[in-house]
């Protein structure tokens, strides 16, 4: 993954790709936590290249969303395949991580 985490004005865009399961979930969560500002209010998961997510992967999303929500913010996803969207929905994350309407690139902070 190149540049997996990008800053946006009030939060981060987290680009996740490939498989996210028990093998790499802890490492991914540590990386996200290290890159996220403690006051980040918005987190956007870019799931365009995500092909498989197990419960540990869903856990990464939930924990990260929890950080944003603890600051009174919100969590969103973008680019997810129908299968991933259905997984999020069945898992009950439909109201926790909502679809993001604008492409993440447009929200990217100026360099």
């Amino acid at each position, binding site marked *: 993954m190149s540049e997996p985490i990008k800053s946006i004005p009030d939060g981060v865009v987290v680009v996740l790709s490939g498989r996210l*399961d028990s093998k790499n979930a802890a490492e991914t969560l540590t990386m996200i936590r290290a890159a996220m500002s403690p006051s980040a209010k918005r987190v956007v998961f870019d799931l365009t290249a995500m092909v498989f997510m197990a419960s540990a992967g869903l856990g990464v999303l*939930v924990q990260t969303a929890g950080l944003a929500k603890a600051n009174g913010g919100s969590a969103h996803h973008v680019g997810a395949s129908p299968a991933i969207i*259905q997984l999020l929905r069945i898992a009950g*994350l439909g109201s926790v991580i909502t679809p993001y309407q604008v492409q993440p690139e447009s929200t990217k902070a100026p360099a």
Partner: protein
Amino acid sequence: MNTSEHLTTFPAIAIFLAGLAFFFHGLDGVKESLKSMAGRSLRQRIERFTSTGALAALWGFILGALAQSSTAASFIVTGFVSSRLLTLRRALTMVAWANLGTVVLPFIASFDIRTVIALILGVGGLLATFRAGREFLLPAWRGLFMLGLLMLGLQFLKDATGGIPDEPWFRQFAQTLGDSLVFGFVVGIASRLVIQSTSAIVVIVVTFVNSGILTDSQAAMMVHGAGVGVGAMVLLMGRSSHGLPRQLAYFQAIINSAAGAILALEVITTKFTGLPSLLDLIRNTITSDSSRMLAVVYVVQQALCVGIAELCGSRWTHWLNRLSPPTDAQNLATPMYIDQGAGVDPTSFLDMIAREQARIVEKLPDILDCVRSDGQRTLAECNHMAESCKSLGAEVHHALRELSQTRLDRQDAEQLLALDIKQRAVDQLVTEVAHFARASLDERRTSETGSDSDGNALLFGMTEGLHLVLSQLVECDRNRVPSDVAMLLMIVSDRGDLMEQLRADIAASTSRGARPGLQYTLALFERAMWLVGKVAPANGADELDDTNGIGGSGGTGGTDGTDDTLSNPTTQAPTASDSLQHA
């Protein structure tokens, strides 16, 4: 049941098969019945009965004498250990002394075990059928009947194979091998594998000696070989067991094989060195009658089993733990905290109960392991885990009931009520998750057969989703961070619309239209999700209200005692006043 005299080959095979079936079915039944009865009070009573090594030895001796089979005694004790009614250390003593107990009755009385079996089957079966006595006695009657079935199975095995030594081909075979000691030993092992009683083998050996087919030394070697055969048989019949039951099988195999091998070595050594043998010693000091000599040899062998067991004492536990470590499920089923609760103040005891409860919650995600893509456990292992959760849950209920009969202050009484309500929800969650795992596995097979990718995706989503919330529940139960609890409640709450839509999706799909199993799995999933909200700690609900305004429909953990009742009317959580009546 006396079928041994004129059995031709086909009936013998049929009776042998029936014997195996009775034995294994009886063994399962005894274990199940003991599990149903295995509360703290019964365990404490059995602990009192076996509180010292001497008492455990006495009970083992009596058990061996009554069962007349070291194999049967081993498996009965295994049932007690599996149900945690007996500690491994005491069980080892009982098994060792049960071996010695088997020597008593065949030599002091004409005792017909068939009468005892018929009595056990009759009394146990009738009492169970007519549900005699109070409700809690029903598992005891069933257990008694199953014990009779187990013993009947062993008797059938004996009957089916008892005629082999009388067969002309066997006698001819024995004569052609002359006075070979090794032959006697090998035939002893083989005989014990098919004839489920060493004492019966001793009787057969005596007839061989009297008719000149075997020498005294060969006969002794056959008895020693039978000792090794006991070990092989116990290992063979207990091969599907794991952990503690397997440890007992290893123990029985080791002490019997070692005793048989040591005495066989003694026979061979003394023959070739000309030193006085055990047989010479018995002949010169006790009796010169062949049958009595062999009876004494048998007693010496069984006493040596006990000697080997006692010689190594507490080291057995260490060795056996290395040979066959207790499984996760067995460890879970053993209370870690509440058994140490005697004499502590109610507040501390409640804390111990809460810790025990947390151990059950921690294992909830593991019950789904068999159906997950990266799970390590089989369905049987997951079922064992669920059974262990229920077993520990029963301990928690028992401890709560015990505590409710003492004088509690208001705070402790409220805590007790909260733990009771939570435990009821945990029990139901364990059941639902276990049912979900089984149903999901069945449905996945159906989906794979029919190449139903939509069905598979739905099953995958439900499994991973449920595993996610169970894992989050463990985190919340452990750390009780309000924001995490609020997040969990948000995930599990207000799922009605989603479930309706999924149900409609399944019904509308032509490929899954006739799949009531998938609907059933979805229903189990929905209920499990709802129960997670009931089990979740209470401190997230307020935060959920503050942040989203959608809280309250999930769970409150019920600490206020006004939790809405669970949907199953037979297992409804009690009201505060009901539970506090005890307090």
